[in-house]
Structures are given as C-alpha cells and as structure tokens.
C-alpha cells in the first residue's frame, strides 16, 4: 500500500511546488446563447490540493469536462506540465497523467470490484493490449489493482459485483479507478456527492492520505467543510469566470466572494464556524498549509 502511494506521488514530488502543473488559460465554452465557461483561467501547482468551488450552475463540471478532454473548448488553451494539451483526446491526456473521476459514479456495475480496477490498470497501459496472453494471469496488473483496492479500503469487497456495493463504497471504487490510471493530477468531480456524514468522513480521510503524498488534486466539491479542510488554495467560479483564487483564509475573507457566492453575512459566518470546528476536530484533519511545503 505504501508502495502504491509512493508510486502515485513520485511524479508530483519531483517537481517544484511553485510550478504550475496545470494551466487553464482563458478557456471559453458556449452552448448556444449560454456561455458556460467565460474566459476562465486557473493554475494548479504541482503537489497542491486546489479546490474549485462555486454556486450551482457556475460551470464547474463543464470546466472539468474540458480539462479532462470530454468536451472541446471553443476558445483558450490548456497546458499540462508545460505542454499544450488542448487538442489531445481523453485517453491521450490520461496517459500523460491528467485523470478525472466522475460526479455520477462511472463503474462497470456488472463486473466484480477487482475486475473494475484490473480493467482500469489494463486500459491505462500505453502499449497496445495483448491479443494472446490471458489477462487473468497478468500478475503485474493484479498486483497493481489489489494495491489500489487496499488504498481505498475495498479489499474485502474484491469479489462482489460492483453494482451491489453501497453508494459510498461505489464512490471509493470510482476513486480507485482514477488512481489506477496513475494520475499526476487528479480531477475530482464532487467525490462526496450523495454521501452520508460517515461516508464523507471516510472520503476526506482518503483524500487527506493522497494529499499527504503530495499528489496534485483539483477538487470540485460542495461540502465546504471538506473543501476548507483539504484545500491549499481555493478558486471560486461564478458564471463561468474565476473571480478569486487564494488560500482558504483569503477566500473566506474576500468581499467579492462573499457577495457572489457565500451569500449574506450570516450564512458566511456559519461557514466560518463550520470551518473552525473542522480545525478543532484534530491536528491531522488539516494538513500543512501551502506555504510550509517545499
């Protein structure tokens, strides 16, 4: 398990934290008259956990779709590790290390949990898949897949059909599939979507473990407790534009953000309280601030 974590972080930790691993440059996406992404710009530094927040309909998922390659932007550019990836297909981006998870769980429901992860391992290999060697005897793929299952805590479920898992477990599997693709930057589209408090807590723990290994994360999430607990920096998306980027403290105190996103003062105060509670919950819950890590 530790080895798998090490592998995941190897690419990320070898880079300077100040370097932008992902650069979203004035991205534009229109659907008819609606401009879903309106010259959005964003930088995700290597090794950081970057949260993308915004009210419903702000265009967060649309932006994730464009970064992952599911949607082609109408304007602007995407640079991953200094390379222009705007024209690359989704599989090409995945092989480069730009991997996403889905807001709506996307797993192979009829296959076993272990099948799911083995398929993810086989899919991400850059070489053409063998026609001849039995996949079931592919020890390297199985070793990888079992490590990923251990990482997300689903080892005991390996033989179950994925569709029969509880919702929270399916979300963990979703994360395992993304991790199996060996991301250098992981786009997490609402990993806590539809989860109960216990399940959310477990997911936060999992993401904290990834963060501790300095895997670069771009996290879209509605759960503000989780966002302020995990994120080194936060970007706020409103109507397809990034209106502010900063540390959680800066974002909390940003007047424009409060007005556009957090709503009235009272609600903002509630959010701040929730965050303080999260801080008090334990020193391990909140990892090192961004400036400390280098």
């Amino acid at each position, binding site marked *: 398990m530790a080895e798998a974590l090490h592998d995941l972080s190897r690419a990320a930790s070898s880079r300077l934290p100040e370097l932008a691993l992902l650069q979203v440059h004035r991205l534009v996406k229109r659907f008819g008259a609606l401009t879903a992404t309106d010259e959005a710009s964003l930088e995700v530094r290597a090794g950081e956990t970057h949260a993308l927040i915004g009210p419903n309909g702000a265009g967060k998922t649309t932006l994730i779709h464009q970064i992952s390659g599911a949607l082609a932007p109408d304007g602007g550019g995407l640079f991953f590790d200094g390379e222009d990836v705007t024209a690359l297909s989704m599989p090409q981006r995945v092989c480069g290390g730009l991997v996403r998870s889905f807001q709506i769980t996307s797993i192979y429901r009829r296959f076993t949990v272990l099948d799911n992860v083995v398929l993810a391992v086989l899919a991400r290999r850059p070489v053409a898949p063998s026609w001849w060697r039995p996949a*079931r005897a592919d020890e390297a793929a199985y070793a990888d897949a079992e490590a990923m299952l251990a990482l997300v805590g689903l080892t005991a479920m390996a033989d179950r059909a994925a569709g029969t898992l509880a919702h929270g477990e399916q979300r963990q599997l979703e994360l395992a599939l993304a991790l199996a693709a060996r991301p250098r930057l992981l786009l997490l589209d609402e990993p806590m979507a539809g989860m109960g408090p216990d399940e959310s807590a477990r997911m936060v723990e999992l993401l904290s473990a990834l963060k501790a290994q300095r895997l670069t994360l771009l996290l879209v999430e509605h759960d503000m407790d989780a966002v302020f607990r995990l994120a080194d920096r936060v970007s706020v998306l409103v109507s397809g534009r990034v209106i502010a980027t900063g540390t959680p403290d800066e974002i909390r105190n940003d007047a424009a953000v409060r007005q556009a996103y957090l709503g009235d003062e009272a609600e903002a105060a509630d959010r701040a309280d929730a965050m303080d509670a999260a801080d008090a919950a334990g020193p391990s819950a909140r990892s090192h601030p961004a400036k400390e890590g280098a």
Partner: protein
Amino acid sequence: MTEPITGPIIGPITEPVTTRHTLLHHRALGAWAWALLVALAALPPLLQALGLEFYTVVATRVLIFAIAAASLNLILGFGGLVSFGHAAFVGLGAYTVGVLADAGIGSAWIAWPAAMVVSGVAAAVIGAISLRTRGVYFIMITLAFAQMFHYLAVSLKAYGGDDGLPLAARSILSGLPLSLADDASFYWVALAVFALVFAGLRRLVNSPLGWLLQAARENETRVAATGGRVFAVQWTAFVVAGAIAGLAGALLANLNGLVSPHLMHWSQSGQLMVMVILGGAGALWGGPLGAVAFLLLEELLSGVTIHWQFALGAILLVVVLFAPRGLTGLVARRSARSKEAAHG
C-alpha cells in the same frame, strides 16, 4: 475461478487472499473440449455406418456457420456492437475463392488466406467508418455497406451476376493426404478450422484486448477515462471478426460449389444474428450452439412444413422472452443450480 481449498495447507500462503472471482474470463470446456473434438471427428464414419452419409454435408454446413456465428459473437456479444452486415464478410470470402478459382488458382493455401485478407480489409474500411457511430446508426451503416456489396456482386456480370458463379471443383489442399472432394475429408478440415478459430477466439476474448472490448460494452466512457483507446480496441475486434467470417465464406463456397450474391443479402446477416442471440450473445459457446440449434431446427421443421420459418420465429420469441441469455445461459443456470445443490 479457484476452487476453495479443502485439504491441509502446507507452508506459508503466498497467493493473494482474494479468489479473483472474475466475470470477464470465459471458460471453454477444458479437457472436455478434446472429448468433444474426438466425438465430432467420429461423426462421418458413424453416419456412414448408419447409412446417413447425406448428414455429413449438413454437419459441415453447421460447422461453417458455427465459425461465422462465433466471429459475429465477438463484436455483437463481447463488443456489444450490433453489426447487421456480417454476411458481407462471409460473401466476400466466398467470392474471393470463386474469383480465384475462375482465374485458375484452386489451392486452398492461397485462396483461403486470400479470402481472410479481402474480408479483413473490407472490415477495416467498414469498421473505420461505422465505429464512429453508435446504436441505430451503427446498425444502419453496417447494413448499408453489406447491401452495397450485395448489389456489387449482382452487377458483376463477368462472375454470373444474380445467378452467381459455380465452382468447377473444391479447393486443393496440396501436401495433405486428403481430398476435399470427399465429403468426410471436407468435414474434417472444416472441423479442424472450427477448432482453431474457436481456440483463437477464446484466447482473444480472455486477453487484455478482449477484456477491454467487454469493458467498452459495459461502460465506454469509463474505458476512455482510464486511458483505454476504445476505437482501436473495437476496430481490432471488428477486423478479426471480418477476417474469420471471410474464412467461413471460403469454406461455404466450397461446400455449396457456388458463390452467389444471396450470400451477402441482409437476410443472411439477420440469420447470423439470430444464431448468436439464440445461442447466447457474449457467451463463448453462444455462436456455435446457436448455429447448431438454428440449422437443426431448420432441417427438422422444413421437413414438416414449408412454413418452418413461422415455427422458428415462435421458438426465437420464446428464447428471447424466457432465456434472454440464450441457450448457453440456460445451460449455465442449470449447472450453477446443480453445483449449489451438490454443495448443499
């Protein structure tokens, strides 16, 4: 699918704890496959002893359609791609043999691989275009291509046009001590080809390529999001299936002694689809079992009534309604139940 360990375990367990239960791996019959092969090989002398030589030809026909249906099952069953034009590849293979024989090239060593190449190339082109579409569009595009080849064959006056092209003799297998002119020998060759094709397809289905093909059937977006090249995987399977169908066509041309545009008619594609669905789409034995069931039913029912297709339709309806996983699904369910009963 490891059996549970019942005996004493000696030494440390180095195996992973999980039993690696997988739904992607498809088993053939194991050692029973060899027994089946021997039994099938014994069929011609048996039929001769019973004075039923005619059925050797029927059995050969079943084997050839088993090959064609197994190849369609690769893309339809394992790939989830409903191709409605598979007969085009069978027909192209048959025409390749016919045209080569017409030009004086009767060697099976040349004509049969040539049939596979021609059908494979056609599948490469058709696949490259049609695999960019999905659902009803995919069905319609594959159907349209097949009909195009059908009408092309009709228009080839030099090769008989609508009436087709008769073969003067069956292909020559030089170097082997058998002549395809002999029905029993031809049956054995068809059986050998079937066994090789089936073993190869089993290998392919259980390889990483085959697993990704099945994965794309279940959830294409997930394959792409983990870095899999869905198009390349499906295209490869499409070409392999086309080439194997071409080989079936080469055998069929020899069996019928005639190649005609009817081989590529859409109803022939439909017949192959019925075989696969009847036998069990996405099950290793689905194609062969469906071909056996379909052709035997045809043989039986057509002896009773000229409206045999009506009865066949009714049977197909029953299968789709009560055994959606086809005949292999029924067998699998039965064996699972008896296994459960045996374990208490």
